[in-house]
């Protein structure tokens, strides 16, 4: 009897509405409308168009440098107005045609308002994709085949050289958004837990000189298809580990590559990306390329003594991301580029005589070549990045990164604030600086600081 009464009391207690319940409900606005009813629609549209307009104005400040920079100097002012478009057309279910392009109007210091360089076009991709069997694909045309999982440097991204186009940011993750594809034939098969792909990119033109000036409407196939190249890749997942193995084939520059990612707990992703193969060092490659394309005299000696024989070089990016309080994500990476300038090479670069123009041209050509190849100039660096998608207020995104040279501690640092004015409009401001002593890797660069104001209208 007593037990029954106790039971009844307990049941009665648990049946009382929790007092906090009404508090929770009070936080829902009384007039909150029911979520939008989404009409049933078919998204099998045959044609899909994505376009946006962008205006990016750049102001920069230069400084005197120890090693004279050959003309043309980096600009102090540029305004670029762009129409960015991606069109996908699926005439039949198994076939898709893709065209990705950016058209620019450029006003720039020392550039006539109307000239051949005012209008510029970047044909990023133009290819057809065919799926003859389920999850088996054949692609042909100009394709942006990007590889790698690291953020600051991708040793396995073998098709990156020469693909860079004008950007409103120096952030490596932004740079890869607008790069040129390579003409290739690619096949890929995807199955449960893995995939395999192979591609062949033919040589269509002889190597061409690196051009720092604007290039009009030249599709630049001579940059992206100046050698016969091939790539085979296999991807697999084993438990929480995701891995890729790559074999890259190019005359005198073949490499093997490997990358792996794995979560460590709830907030860390660890990753490593490596490529290795027999190749010339950066200095020898750069001077050789300059001679081959007529930029440097055929008998130009390397400005810094270097080993011209090919040897095994390792490229490595290893690091991780760490997200704190679901608000900020930090990335830290160590980059090794064994073919890059050693500490001794760098001391010779920065200590070279400044009164010999031909020598200065060659010294800067090496760095320009490294930049064109999208590879570090020196052997070791750190890369740090921080990103906060909702910084202080919901619509403000802040991110920043820094490359730190381990040769001399100099840095390239950029901070970007993006504000989403509406669903269609985004405004952004980036400030970047090359910081370090005048003889350091970054401090020796003539452009000391730059700011970019960007306004984007999405359609």
């Amino acid at each position, binding site marked *: 009897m007593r037990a029954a009464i106790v039971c009844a009391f307990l049941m009665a207690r648990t049946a009382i509405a929790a007092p906090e319940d009404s508090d929770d409900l009070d936080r*829902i606005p009384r007039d909150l409308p029911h979520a939008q009813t*989404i009409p049933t629609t078919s998204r099998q549209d045959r044609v899909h168009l994505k376009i*946006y307009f962008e205006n990016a104005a750049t102001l920069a400040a230069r400084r005197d440098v120890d090693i004279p920079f050959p003309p043309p100097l980096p600009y102090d002012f540029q305004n670029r107005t762009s129409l960015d478009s991606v069109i996908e057309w699926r005439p039949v279910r198994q076939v898709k045609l893709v065209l990705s392009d950016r058209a620019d109007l450029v006003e720039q210091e020392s550039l006539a308002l109307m000239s051949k360089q005012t209008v510029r076009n970047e044909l990023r991709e133009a290819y057809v994709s065919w799926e003859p069997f389920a999850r088996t694909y054949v692609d042909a045309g100009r394709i942006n085949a990007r590889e790698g999982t690291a953020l600051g440097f991708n040793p396995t991204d073998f098709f990156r050289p020469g693909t860079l186009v004008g950007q409103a940011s120096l952030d490596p993750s932004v740079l890869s958004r607008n790069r040129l594809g390579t003409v290739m034939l690619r096949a890929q098969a*995807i199955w449960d837990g893995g995939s395999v792909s192979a591609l062949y990119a033919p040589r269509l033109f002889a190597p061409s000189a690196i051009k720092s000036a604007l290039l009009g409407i030249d599709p630049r196939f001579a940059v992206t298809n100046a050698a016969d190249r091939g790539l085979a890749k296999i991807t697999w997942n084993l438990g929480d580990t995701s891995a890729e193995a790559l074999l890259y084939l190019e005359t005198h520059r073949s490499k093997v590559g490997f990358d792996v990612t794995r979560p460590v707990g709830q907030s860390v992703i660890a990753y490593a990306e490596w490529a290795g193969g027999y190749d010339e060092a950066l200095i020898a490659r750069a001077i050789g390329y300059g001679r081959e394309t007529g930029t440097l005299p055929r008998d130009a000696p390397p400005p810094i003594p270097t080993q011209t024989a090919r040897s095994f070089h390792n490229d490595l990016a290893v690091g991780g991301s760490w997200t704190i309080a679901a608000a900020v994500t930090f990335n830290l990476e160590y980059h090794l580029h064994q073919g890059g300038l050693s500490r001794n090479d760098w001391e010779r670069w920065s200590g070279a005589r400044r009164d010999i123009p031909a020598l200065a041209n060659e010294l800067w050509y090496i760095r320009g070549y490294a930049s064109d190849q999208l590879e570090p100039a020196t052997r070791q660096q750190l890369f740090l990045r921080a990103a906060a998608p909702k910084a202080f207020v919901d619509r403000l995104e802040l991110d920043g990164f820094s490359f730190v040279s381990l040769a001399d501690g100099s840095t390239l640092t950029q901070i970007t604030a993006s504000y989403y004015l509406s669903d269609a409009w985004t405004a952004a401001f980036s400030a970047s600086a090359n910081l370090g002593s005048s003889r350091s890797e970054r401090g020796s660069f003539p452009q000391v600081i730059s700011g970019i104001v960007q306004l984007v209208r999405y359609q």
Partner: protein
Amino acid sequence: MPSAMSRGLGLVLLVLVSVPVLADPPEAQAIVDAADRARNPQKPFRQTLTLVDYVHGKAQDSVTLGVQAKIDPQTRQFRNLVRYLAPPRDEGKLVLLDASKMWFYDPASKTSIRISAQQRLTGQASNGDVLTVNLAHDYTAKLVGEETIKDADRQERRAWHLDLAAATGDAMYNRLECWVERDTYRAIKTKFYADSGRLLKIAYYRAFAAVLGGTRPTETVIIDAVDSNLVTTVGAGDFHEQEIPDAWFQRDYLPRLEQK
């Protein structure tokens, strides 16, 4: 007589109390499993979610996501492929959510970035899979009791109150509290807690409708417990059963994924 009355009253009390005692509530884990099944179709399906943030009661940002979901037969957990359909600046971006295998793909840069469980929560899509999550596998449930609570429409409901503790490393939250309607196994409300014990958000499920063979919530109201001014509604619609091959749930398929 007094003794008879006492015995009679005792019998009445015993009957009143014994009904629920004799008809024992299901095991807590079974309730959670049943609620999972009531909330989501068990066959592979796709749906469109529209998330709207309300700040001080006024609509601010919205995101539309296409979600393709399939249960992993081994873990009984949903695997999701999430595509941004709007706003235009994010259109085409993809997120693969498959236990600890989470990848973000940006078609503009052709870049796949592996993301952690914490990083997944930094974007607005963190609320996108609130509906397509099976709690029974990743949490150990304990029945707190039976309560009468008000649902999102302020209607009183008899509900089981359950306390869920993370049981696997894949659990997104350290602890949950959820209320499941006794007669229908419909989820009414869930509270999400961080590792520190801090309450992060409260989800109310409403607008139940016939969806793919069951009566399921088509709207979730998520109250941000950290930012007291923020409420997010997640409207679900455009449901379709869809064959989704297992091969789709990997990094290399993301560039090939079409919204069908």
